[in-house]
């Protein structure tokens, strides 16, 4: 990972089991190609994703983070994504406020039938993160490396 000219970002994606993870599977079944920078972490529901998880992933060295759940109204657990929506809206604004680049942390709704949309989301997120370059703000490891 030392050559910055060959730098490839790593993006952590928290996907809900019922819609977005299924949408990612459908992208595969349909062979929609997307950049290989994404590392998918399956969670039961977008409502399972906390601000701590997002900030901690950033701290651990994620160049980008994507959280994706069912479209509002489609939540397998009735209301999980509605609560998530409020939490993410506030977190997203707060991160912007302290100068975390817009595009580091992204949110989307992708349903089980939206394979192509999933691929588009990954394309879009990856492009934005690549344009931003390696994450340095609130990243623990990089600071440690620089200090060493």
């Amino acid at each position, binding site marked *: 990972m030392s050559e910055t000219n060959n730098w490839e970002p790593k993006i952590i994606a928290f996907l809900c089991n019922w819609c977005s993870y299924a949408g990612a599977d459908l992208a595969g079944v349909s062979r929609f190609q997307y950049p290989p920078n994404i590392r998918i972490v399956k969670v039961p529901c977008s409502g399972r994703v906390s601000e701590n998880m997002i*900030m901690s992933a950033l701290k651990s060295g994620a160049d980008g983070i994507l959280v994706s759940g069912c479209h509002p109204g489609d939540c397998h657990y009735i209301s999980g994504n509605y609560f998530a929506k*409020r939490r993410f809206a*506030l977190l997203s604004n*707060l991160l912007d406020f302290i*100068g975390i680049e817009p595009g580091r942390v992204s949110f989307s709704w992708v349903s089980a039938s939206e394979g192509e949309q999933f691929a588009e989301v990954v394309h879009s997120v990856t492009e934005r993160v690549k344009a931003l370059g390696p994450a340095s703000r609130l990243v623990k490891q990089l600071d440690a490396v620089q200090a060493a």
Partner: protein
Amino acid sequence: MPTINKRISEEIRAQARKLLEEGEVAAVLGYGAGSLPMTVKPLVVRRPEDCSKLIWSAFCVLNLANYLPAALKSVEPPRGPRDPKHEGPLPKVAILATGCWSRNIVVQIQEHQVARGRVVVMGVGSRGMVSRRKVEALFPGLEILAVEEGDHELVVRGADFAETINRWSVVRDNCQSCTHPDPVLVDLRIGEPVSERKNPNPFKQVEEIEQQSGDERWAWFTREFSTCIRCYACRNACPLCYCPTCFVDDAKPQWVGKSLDAVDTGLFHVLRAYHCAGRCTDCGTCETVCPMGINMRLLTKKLNKDVLNLYNIEAGMEPDSPLPLTTYTMDDPEKFIITELTPVPRAVKEGK
């Protein structure tokens, strides 16, 4: 004619004495005089004869709601972990509350930390509390020995000087931008109600930062929190921070390192502020108690602004309504969702 705060102090003493004498409450949570100029200290009064120690001044900057759960606990009969629950009503505590503190009490009620029936809220309209730091900044290098409080001015005295300054000019930022100075929950009114303040832009400080570029904001953030020594005074003074184990002390996973490393410090403040989202009343105590003068209030104020703009909720205004993060509407805004998607080229599998 005595000053407003003098009259309020008198009324507090009289009412507190009455409550204690009549056995209505087991304790009164208020303020006593501090040992230094411009300081006061939280005081729990349990005997009528001690009520004379209660005071009210422009320097009541600590949020009394922070002490309320402990005060309530202190008046309960002792109970071991295996003992049965106490039968019958538990003793009450009276507490002085301004606009923001009363809203904190409402949040405490919403969050089951305080039983409404056990609290007698002695509501005091706030005229804005004075920032000791602002006063001191006016007299650099000089030692202030006493400050006399008038209704609209302060007389600041040192060993060889005495100067009159405008009171409002040294009122804390949060009080200056406050729109709800009068308590929202009152059982016993002290003094005159204070009208709602029409503040054309209560979020001016936040907007000043919002208008900067992303890099400038990041520079501001790192600069602002660079001096943090992780003393947790902000957390300890906050009535919202009552977790038995704070997230900073979690081990599996360790969300935030315990070092003074800028990342750990920054994460601590971001997550702490976030945990106050929709609950913070902008009482300003965190900032007031910070030994390093960090303006961490700006983070919570930013969240307050968003909660108000997005969900039309201000913390602690209505005891019966849910907190913003425990409720939702079908059409909550979702501007943060990605909308610009990059079209995918269809895979060309042949000729690979």
